[in-house]
């Protein structure tokens, strides 16, 4: 809706760019100076992160993070699908409640409440089950929106061709719904991967927890957590990029 940029507008864009570049460079310089003034840019403080043993330890953590995220994802999606396909008062209430209760609180329930009722799961599941319970609610919402995004005419057409209801759902509605849901599913996957950082609380040795142990050992708190944050960033960005590619490919083949 913008006009094609004229000379005056282009000049204005140029000057705004220059000014904001200067401001940005200033901010970065200020931050770096603050870091340097406190000795945080000292090469000695960063060199450990060029060595393999440190990375091996962090990548071990990343692996645990991925395992926990995958287990949670599978459980939560299965639960979400079950609940979404049977919309009734209970499933709706479940989605509403679980979307508002902090996962940390659920983790605490797992840690403190259930053991007194004789339910005592291994550490891994103490992290995965609360995450799955919480994320299942998000998946319900996503799946329902996905199914609703498919034109009802599609289902009617399928039924009028004499296909049984289950077949229509499976072969007509779901494939289209999945295509609509892909971006949301990726956002959810990223959020799930991030939530596994609660392993920090239950001392499941995932990435953030290993970062803490490492920082406690070498005393390089800032450096360790910046590196850990960077690993999360790379993994999650790769995840979203991957989905963009898949989506683009599917858009091509669908035509």
């Amino acid at each position: 809706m913008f006009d094609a940029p004229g000379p005056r507008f282009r000049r204005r864009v140029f000057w705004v760019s220059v000014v904001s570049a200067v401001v940005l460079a200033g901010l970065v310089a200020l931050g770096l100076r603050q870091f340097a003034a406190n000795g945080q840019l000292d090469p000695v403080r960063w060199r450990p992160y060029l060595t393999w043993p440190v990375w091996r330890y962090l990548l071990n953590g990343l692996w645990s993070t991925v395992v926990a995220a995958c287990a949670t994802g599978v459980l939560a999606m299965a639960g979400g699908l079950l609940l979404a396909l049977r919309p009734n008062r209970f499933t709706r209430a479940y989605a509403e409640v679980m979307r508002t209760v902090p996962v940390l609180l659920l983790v605490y329930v797992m840690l403190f409440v259930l053991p007194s009722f004789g339910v005592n799961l291994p550490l891994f599941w103490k992290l995965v089950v609360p995450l799955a319970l919480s994320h299942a609610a998000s998946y319900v919402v996503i799946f329902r929106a996905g199914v609703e995004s498919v034109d009802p005419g599609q289902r009617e057409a399928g039924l009028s061709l004499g296909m049984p209801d289950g077949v229509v759902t499976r072969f007509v509605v779901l494939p289209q719904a999945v295509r609509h849901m892909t971006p949301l599913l990726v956002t959810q996957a990223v959020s799930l991967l991030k939530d596994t950082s609660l392993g920090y609380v239950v001392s499941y040795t995932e990435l953030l927890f290993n970062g803490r142990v490492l920082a406690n050992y070498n005393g390089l708190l800032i450096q360790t957590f910046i590196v850990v944050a960077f690993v999360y960033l790379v993994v999650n960005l790769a995840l979203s990029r991957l989905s963009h590619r898949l989506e683009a490919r599917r858009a091509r083949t669908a035509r």
Partner: protein
Amino acid sequence: MGRLFVAALLLFVAGCAGGENVVPGVGGGKFAVLLGKAPMYTGQVTPGSAVDRIKKRGKLIIGGSQDAPLLSQLDPTSGELTGFDAYLGKLLAQYIIGSPQTELLSATSETREPLLANGTVDVIIQTYTITPARKERVAFAGPYYQSGQSIAVRRGTSGITKPADLAGKTVIAGANTPAIGAIKAVAPTARVVEFGSDPECLTALKQGRGEAYVQDQAILVADASKDSELQLVGEPFTEDPYGIGIKHGDAEFTKFVNDWLREIGKSGLWQDVWKQTIGTVVTGDAPSPPAIAS
């Protein structure tokens, strides 16, 4: 983009290949000497008992810390675990299995009871204070060490010389540790700020997020050994006997571990371990190990 994905995949595989946090057999050279002196169990093993299970598995699974200096600290780069608790764990493994094969599962004060109850770990060796309340859920062998809650401040802090001085102050404590109750008992008006781990509490104290830090004396002594900014105030103001946590109701294994503790106490091995760990920062002779109730 494809290349990035492959790179990510490679990272995962690499991480996978690294494997579990299995602690390699023997500690530093000096610990190897202790290991040479360590006793080994030669008596009968009841089939199906905890000892039998551990022997068949070939390693002892311990719930403990990875980040407690002098007690149980992991060198993340070498996978080496050192400290008083860690060495006792290895010696116990030596006693049962005949080799110091242990695996450390990271536990916190919030997770260790569940870990024991469902059999994820064989024992908890983690500055685990024996209390009547805990005894209802956990069996304890020991005590193997006598400690107490102590107060630490930043060097140069004035106005805190005894526990009652904590009144009205902001005091840092580990989440879900006995320190919280201990603070409330001596200074009900103190404001408690909790952090999840000892190093976090320590960092918080140094950054001025509280005026004092209450923690087990052994841990504080170890912290102070690494950090000259930290200063201990007075003697411990509670008495906390540390025990080895065992699954509730397993009287046989509890007696087994107690017998072992008595044996290493008598032979002087206990004192040797103390000298190599806590004794490196605490001056004076090794204390005598606490008496073990039958």
